[in-house]
């Protein structure tokens, strides 16, 4: 059959069941079109068919006959559409995986809008309707709105040069950025994983003979890593197949017969704690996975409950704290808030699924993998497979979202490597969306019993908090530390308990359990302030031991929206508005061993480090640091990341990227500059050379940077970050793998939210969020702002919509598609105002600290406190889905029932 792709006729003979996306991505290697949900929900695979946007994942290849298809590749770097330029200029992207789909749809919108309305700027609602079929997990929607509005209005029609704050923006808006999911190696096999059908079962026998005998199947390997041969959750990998095509691999999985001895299971925290509950780990030796980035402290098991031993770091006068809480009821000078709070499992939902391409050859292992930990993964692979570190190369040039879920030696990588080890061929394993949602990772569910006591004058007296985390079969939800290290100096008894269930294991997700901790602490704090009749901001100021947040409290108190806020529940009518505030506290982490290499080549500056950019902007931070030293544009600096052969950079966890890499980049650039100046004198004979305005000034004139690099011999400098001297706290994280140092002074945030609660239908609309951040120097303001926008949007998803739900009868996850698991879309987002208070971290080298996790913490409690302020009803459980809000309101406010009968 014949079709036209990007203006060129293409003749091919598709399989009957082939889809359009296979034609584009596999036959044509047009990998700018991405496959994400596979169900027409996310829009990542959007292409134009005869000018109309369509989801290529749902289109049969045969339906393209006689049609003209246009993909993102039709708009390459030399033929940029105004929409692409606008996306670059307004930083309308982060990881970039959803970007081509958004751009294709926006181009169609641009054309249709222009035809009807000319250059009139569309409003946000119009843009939201046009792009409602697209999802972005990083939360780049603020930039997307602006980009589409301004492109349609004509700002970019005549523009030829675009300066984007994000150095790789051009590669991302043109679909040229190559993610692991796009990697194609000749002779590559497809690997697929067989997951357990039961939530808890002994695997008696796995018969692979029929699968092995199939033509096109190259290897079948066992994947179950349980010494008792027990599968403990639905989807737990049992075996993996490598075959010459995805279809054959899928068929082979069905030919593997597994004999299960089905065991009783528990699927929820509450069930797991009941007397006589089925045990997730009935064996005496238990070896649960770790859901955190830190080590697992010792604990003692009681059924499915794992209790901590006394931890002196985590408690201060615990006995006194318990006594004050217990006696607070009898003391009329004390006010006690005591409640149980709940938070849901939040699925990472990275748009690029977990994926790896492994190639095991004689004497070497090369693995392309979508990862946050390039360098430690190479070490870990070498250790696991008993290779020398030099024999292993890990490559991860672009990462399509990770948010904590892609750390270390993950399951898809293990499958790819094991299959390649057997076949000696390159093997690619990509999770499909169901696997990604089921076993790709999620933030633990929590249930917390929390008490807080203050005296009538507002002095904080004590806290007790018992945090029960459900990480599935894993342990370590770790809520207590955030409560321990916020509002310090009073008696506290805070402890983490793990409750194991027969569910896939949780993973760290942006500020791991911090959002749950602050949901509890800041909801309770707000309630206490209300009960005391005190301003919740003034009271926080009184309790807060961190000077870093004081300017942020000033800022909040200066905002008219804060000053005009009404009494709780005073808002009249069906739609009630309210204002809420919450704070966040984050450890200031860096990696003292982080190294970066700055080099010159005749073509310009090259920077290399074995780090990775998940879309949070590390590439641009490094480029800017170096470019500013040389007085050149960051776009002229070639930053090469994602290769374990380079000098070791930081991992992308714990908000440590900027803190670890900014300063050594500056230092290395400085030293390269000094070398160049010395060489300018010695080899070119320039007198009095000094660097200024993007080049070398000397006695006789000026040599621009490009000429300097071309004429002078290449130089290279490797610089290590090093510690902060006395200010370091070492050893709080394992330094070998995810090496980290911690500065005792924490970064801080104060957030405010304004909501509108529909008391008839239960919907909560977040109208505006004010994000106050104090994390030191802001290296790249546009990208830092984009990060905060993304955190607000993900945090709003956590507060209002997102929730993992499983079937209690089978333990099977129900929220396995993006049509069931609801992440925020463009139409949901509030107006967001970001305020950075810089400074305060002079003791930190480079003075720049991380912000990704800090910006997530206070979002949900600020929204919850605003709901209380609007309605007088105190939410304790998130997500605040409409039915929960209505149930809560009906209990709290009898008049709501009445309102329902008169309004519509």
């Amino acid at each position, binding site marked *: 059959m014949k079709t036209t792709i990007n203006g060129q006729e293409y003749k091919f003979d598709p*399989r009957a069941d082939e889809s359009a996306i296979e034609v584009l991505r596999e036959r044509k290697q047009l990998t700018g079109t991405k496959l994400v949900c596979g169900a*027409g929900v996310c829009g990542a695979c*959007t292409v134009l068919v005869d000018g109309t946007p369509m989801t290529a994942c749902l289109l049969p290849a045969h339906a393209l006959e006689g049609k003209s298809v246009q993909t993102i590749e039709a708009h390459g770097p030399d033929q940029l559409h105004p929409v692409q330029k606008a996306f670059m200029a307004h930083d309308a992207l982060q990881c970039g995986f959803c970007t081509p789909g958004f751009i294709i*749809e926006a181009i169609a919108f641009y054309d249709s809008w222009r035809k009807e309305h000319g250059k009139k700027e569309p409003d946000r609602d119009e843009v939201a309707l046009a792009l409602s079929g*697209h999802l972005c997990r990083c939360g780049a929607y603020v930039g997307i709105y602006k980009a589409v509005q301004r492109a349609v209005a004509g700002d970019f029609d005549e523009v030829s040069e675009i300066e984007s704050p994000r150095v790789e923006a051009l590669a991302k808006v043109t679909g040229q950025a190559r993610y692991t999911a796009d990697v194609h190696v000749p002779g590559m096999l497809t690997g697929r994983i067989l997951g357990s059908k039961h939530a808890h079962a002994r695997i008696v026998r796995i018969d692979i003979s029929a699968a092995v005998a199939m033509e096109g199947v190259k290897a079948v390997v066992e994947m179950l890593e349980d010494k008792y041969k027990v599968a403990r959750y639905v989807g737990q990998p049992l075996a993996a197949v490598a075959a010459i095509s995805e279809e054959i691999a899928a068929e082979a999985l069905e030919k593997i017969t597994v004999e299960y001895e089905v065991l009783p299971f528990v699927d929820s925290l509450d069930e797991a704690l009941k007397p006589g509950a089925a045990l997730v780990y009935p064996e005496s030796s238990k070896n649960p996975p770790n859901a955190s980035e830190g080590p697992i402290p010792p604990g003692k098991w009681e059924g499915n409950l794992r209790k901590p031993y006394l931890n002196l770091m985590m408690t201060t006068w615990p006995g006194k704290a318990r006594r004050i809480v217990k006696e607070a009821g009898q003391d009329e000078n004390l006010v006690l808030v005591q409640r149980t709070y709940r938070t849901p499992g939040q699925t990472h939902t990275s748009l690029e699924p977990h994926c790896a391409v492994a190639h095991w050859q004689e004497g070497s292992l090369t693995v392309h993998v979508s990862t946050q930990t390039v360098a430690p993964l190479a070490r870990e692979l070498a250790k696991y497979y008993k290779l020398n570190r030099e024999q292993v190369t890990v490559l991860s040039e672009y990462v399509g979202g990770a948010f904590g879920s892609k750390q270390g030696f993950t399951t898809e990588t293990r499958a790819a490597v094991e299959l390649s080890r057997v076949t000696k061929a390159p093997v690619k394993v990509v999770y499909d969306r169901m696997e990604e949602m089921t076993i790709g990772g999620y933030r633990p569910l929590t249930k917390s019993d929390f008490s807080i006591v203050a005296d009538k004058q507002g002095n904080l007296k004590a806290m007790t908090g018992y945090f029960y985390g459900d990480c599935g079969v894993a342990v370590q939800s770790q809520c207590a530390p955030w409560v321990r290290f916020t509002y310090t100096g009073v008696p506290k008894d805070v402890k983490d308990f793990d409750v194991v269930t027969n569910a896939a294991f949780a993973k760290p997700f942006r500020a791991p359990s911090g959002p749950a901790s602050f949901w509890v602490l800041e909801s309770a704090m707000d309630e206490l302030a209300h009960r005391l009749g005190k301003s919740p901001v003034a009271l926080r100021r009184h309790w807060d031991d961190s000077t870093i947040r004081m300017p942020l409290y000033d800022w909040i108190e200066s905002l008219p929206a804060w000053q005009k806020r009404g009494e709780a529940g005073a808002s009249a009518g069906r739609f009630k508005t309210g204002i809420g505030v919450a704070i966040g506290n984050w450890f200031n982490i860096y990696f003292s061993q982080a190294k970066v290499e700055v080099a010159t080549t005749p073509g310009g500056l090259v920077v290399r480090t074995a780090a990775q950019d998940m879309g949070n902007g590390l590439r641009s931070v490094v480029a800017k640091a170096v470019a500013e030293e040389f007085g050149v544009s960051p776009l002229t600096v070639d930053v090469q990341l994602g290769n374990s052969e380079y000098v070791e950079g930081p991992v992308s966890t714990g908000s440590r990227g900027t803190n670890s890499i900014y300063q050594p980049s500056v230092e290395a650039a400085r030293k390269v500059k000094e070398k160049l100046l010395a060489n300018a004198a010695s080899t070119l004979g320039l007198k009095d050379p000094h660097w200024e305005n993007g080049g070398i000034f000397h006695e006789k004139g000026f040599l621009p940077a490009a000429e300097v690099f071309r004429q002078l011999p290449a130089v290279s400098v490797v610089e290590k970050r090093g510690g902060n001297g006395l200010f370091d706290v070492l050893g709080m994280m394992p330094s070998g793998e995810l090496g980290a140092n911690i500065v005792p002074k924490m970064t801080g945030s104060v957030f405010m939210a304004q909501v509108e609660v529909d008391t008839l239908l239960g919907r909560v609309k977040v109208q505006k969020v004010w994000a106050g951040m104090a994390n030191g120097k802001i290296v790249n303001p546009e990208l830092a702002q984009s990060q905060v926008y993304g955190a607000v949007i993900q945090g709003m998803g956590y507060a209002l919509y997102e929730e993992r739900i499983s079937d209690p009868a089978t333990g099977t996850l129900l929220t396995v598609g993006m049509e069931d698991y609801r992440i925020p879309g463009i139409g949901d987002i509030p107006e967001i105002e970001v305020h950075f208070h810089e400074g305060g971290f002079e003791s930190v080298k480079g003075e720049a600290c991380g912000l990704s996790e800090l910006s997530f913490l206070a979002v949900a409690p600020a929204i919850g406190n605003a709901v209380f302020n609007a309605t007088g009803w105190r939410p304790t459980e998130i997500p605040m889905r409409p039915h929960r809000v209505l149930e809560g309101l009906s209990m709290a406010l009898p008049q709501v029932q009445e309102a329902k009968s008169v309004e*519509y």
Partner: protein
Amino acid sequence: MISYAFDYARPTTVEDALAQLDDDAKLLAGGHSLIPALKLRLSAPAKLVDIARIPALKGIRQDGNELVIGAATTHKEILSSDLIKEHLPMFAEGAALIGDPMIRYKGTIGGSIAHADPSADWPAMVIAAEGTVVVQSKSGTRSIAADDFFTGFYMTALEEGEIITEIRFPVPAEGTRMTYQKFTQPASRFAIVGCAAVRKPDGSARVAFTGVSDAAFRDTGVEEAVGDWSTAAIEAAAAKTAEGMELNVDHFASEAYRHHLARVYCKRALVAISE
């Protein structure tokens, strides 16, 4: 998420399509419901018969006192049609609420009602507008009243070997008012509840719901109670919504919450067309 292997045929006439439609074949229209089901291996037809390019199944026309919508007419074509805007404005309003732009470009009215998703928008509108579903098989054609068409959870009165060719609607009399009101499931954009309501010049009503129960249904209890369309009557009618029925429950809406929403949306719809 990869389908079983299947054959593919793209006939250009209904007769060809019927010839291709053997026991193990399934009809493919827009594909937004069927293809995901194939990828999840919930459905395993041996062959897909793609009817999206059969001219006889497309288009909107007036035939005497009836409006005729071809089964393979897309949501986008319906919402853009002047004939629809003039005579069945509820369809333009409702079609614009379906999914997102890409779903509206591909998805078809015939595909939607044949699939009979309990949360789809068209079934309620087709019932409220007194549609007649015309189907063709090798043995001829027959017509099924919309009231009798939706028989259960993803079930219809269609029989093996039948293709929906068109849906016919009486041209509403001058002065008829109609509306479709929907509470959207925010991730999939299906209806958690959808209410289609028609008020005829004689004051009688037709009211149908989707999303509320296992299939879209006409609610005669509401229709009868609406009486003189006074505020009190509308209130009473809305209170009767889905009376005595078993309601859907999912993780977006409990039974009680869904019932609450259905009453609110019923009332909204009735008020919107009350004057």
